[in-house]
């Protein structure tokens, strides 16, 4: 956005050009653009940041940031503050209101992961997947965890000011406060766990949460689930069921986990290598409430041995990874750590 004043004498614009970078506040005394507040005034507001330059027979201001739809901006030019100004010429004022984009509610919360209706007592996180980019800033007020009687669980989530969004801001990671799930942690003893086995909870997302276009969600979202026993076992690849496809086809490789895995990590941390050790390209799908992983290769399967690979940092719903459980009992099994970066399981394509 730019504002131009024209019709100045060549001598004045030469003089302005000489002023050079005298600082933005100096220029702004002659020409400024301010936001008009809802009561119609501008006096309180600083002029907008931007750059000034003299143009032939005039002066130009380029705002650094775009104008926001629906807000009113006022440009004021003071001829009396020009170099060699004569007398008290009144200021020239111009107002502009960019058209408002209709902020209609079209964004939805499309899925909450994990998708299962029964979740372990020591569940570590939820992912909230939205249909379009959302806005950040004080989001936790829109997220509630309620007991069956409607009572709200107090501060169940790790509230992180930065908020854990993916780059597109369509997925939010919501950690359950580890202090409310770990064994032996002080907050747990004082205020109890966020989730208790055998009870029913509802995760509720308010519709007032705004998307990136400042429109509220299409509707509120509720996920009702029952809490099962805690999961303190690490994911174990030897217990996974692997159904190998037939050679020469692009059939699905089907892998069933012994334990549901983290939705994001199961898509990122599991892959297939061929006999030469090359990673196969293809499409991954998760189903059966994050218990089943399928892979369709881009090229037909070749006969022979293949390797299913998982990073040892892959987590189940309670944050246990192949390397170690979420809570390590230091007097017990801490030496059980595998140490390698990946776990593997061989299978044969015939």
């Amino acid at each position, binding site marked *: 956005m730019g504002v131009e004043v024209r019709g100045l004498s060549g001598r004045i614009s030469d003089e302005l050009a000489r002023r050079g970078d005298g600082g933005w506040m100096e220029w702004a005394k002659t020409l400024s653009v301010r936001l008009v507040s809802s009561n119609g005034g501008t006096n309180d507001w600083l002029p907008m940041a931007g750059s000034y330059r003299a143009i032939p027979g005039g002066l130009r201001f380029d705002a650094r940031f775009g104008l*926001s739809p629906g807000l009113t901006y006022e440009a004021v030019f003071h001829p009396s503050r020009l170099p060699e100004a004569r007398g008290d010429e009144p200021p020239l004022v111009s107002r502009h209101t960019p058209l408002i984009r209709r902020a209609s509610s079209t964004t939805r919360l499309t899925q909450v992961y994990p998708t299962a209706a029964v979740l372990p007592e020591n569940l570590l996180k939820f992912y909230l997947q939205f249909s379009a980019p959302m806005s950040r800033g004080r989001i936790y007020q829109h997220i509630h965890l309620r007991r069956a009687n409607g009572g709200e669980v107090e501060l169940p989530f*790790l509230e992180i*000011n930065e908020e*854990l969004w993916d780059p597109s*801001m369509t997925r939010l*990671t919501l950690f359950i406060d580890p202090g409310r799930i770990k064994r032996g942690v002080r907050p747990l003893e004082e205020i109890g766990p966020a989730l208790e086995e055998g009870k029913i909870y509802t995760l509720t997302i308010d519709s007032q949460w705004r998307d990136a276009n400042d429109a509220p969600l299409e509707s509120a979202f509720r996920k009702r689930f029952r809490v099962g026993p805690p999961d303190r076992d690490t994911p174990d690849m030897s217990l996974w069921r692997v159904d190998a496809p037939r050679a020469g086809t692009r059939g699905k490789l089907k892998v069933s986990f012994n334990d549901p895995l983290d939705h994001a990590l199961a898509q990122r941390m599991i892959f297939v290598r061929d006999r030469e050790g090359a990673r196969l390209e293809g499409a*991954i799908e998760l189903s059966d409430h994050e218990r089943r992983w399928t892979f369709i290769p881009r090229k037909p399967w070749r006969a022979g041995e293949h390797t299913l690979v998982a990073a040892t940092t892959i987590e189940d719903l309670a944050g246990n990874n192949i390397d170690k459980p979420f809570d390590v009992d230091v007097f017990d099994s801490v030496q059980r750590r595998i140490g390698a970066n990946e776990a593997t399981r061989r299978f044969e394509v015939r």
Partner: protein
Amino acid sequence: MKPFSPVSRARALAPVLALGLMTSSCLAANWTAGFEEGKPAIKSISQITFGPDAILFVADSKSASIFAIATEDAKAGAPGKMIQVAGINAKAAALLGTTADQVLIDDLAVNPISHTAYLAVSRGRGPDAVPTLIRVKQDSQLEWVNLDRVKFSRVDLPDAPTDTPPAEGRRGANPRVETITDIAFLEDRLLVAGLSNEEFSSTLRSVPFPFKKVARGASVEIYHGAHGRFETRAPIRTFVPFMVGNEPQLLAAYTCTPLVQLPLKDLLPGSKVKGKTIAELGNRNRPIDMIVYQKGGKDYLLLANSSRGVMKVSTDKIEAAENIAEPVKDGSTRGLAYETVKGWTGVDQLDRLDQDTALVLRHSEGSVQNLESLPLP
């Protein structure tokens, strides 16, 4: 966020002071030697902190990079000036041509030389938000910081070692982000704490400055062995470098508020470090920010919290502090003594303005945020 100031270092790092000063003066001319001139491609600003010679470090979580920017704001400020700006979020918004609900102030850092306050401000709240810097001078006037042509240097943080490219069928970019939760400069390195939005892991990197390429996997996993028998991976929320005896240490506050001490010498790439829990600071509470300062010849730590106000912790007994290995049953606190500072409510950001004054960004009822200078307690 918390420059390791010459004042506190002079005392806190007394045993290495001579060496430290010599190193600094030898290197003084070299801090910006490898800098290029131009416009740094900053995609987001999560954290800011000052280093030597008015160099501002900008942590960009979106591009997984740290920028070092020569602000050239190196003229010594007058002592004892108090910055006060009521409604700073609305004023910053007006400067950026929008309303307070469309800006977020993500961090605050005071230039220890000029005592100018720098604010990391996001114009917009969605994925297209524009990150920018606004500074507040000692006369409390706001100024937008133009980064179109500055001297800067950049270092990219490596992905987690287990990271693999997104599989086919997952459109767009890798959804994994490592959010930088705090940074601090110490001597010749920048310490960077991060938290992943996928696996539950917390990393602390030590990045040499002037920047070199950061080795892949140059991160440490931090454990704290508190709470009886269970050690856990825990994300660091905020930290400060601090001398305990003769050894540089980090005092780190975890998301579930124990205060943990970690020796810096243990923070080697790829290592697993266990910290010592030296204080339990209570439940229903999150640490937000902390600074160290001196008063009456004693060292203190000031920790801003989400719901328990600001805690002043006397650190002169840290050396002798014992690890808290047993859960505290009676509801009282254990470890280092602390007091809650009265009246410091709603603190969102905290830094030291000068040796006697703190600068806080805090919110009152509603969404109004004020920038206030408060005498250090």
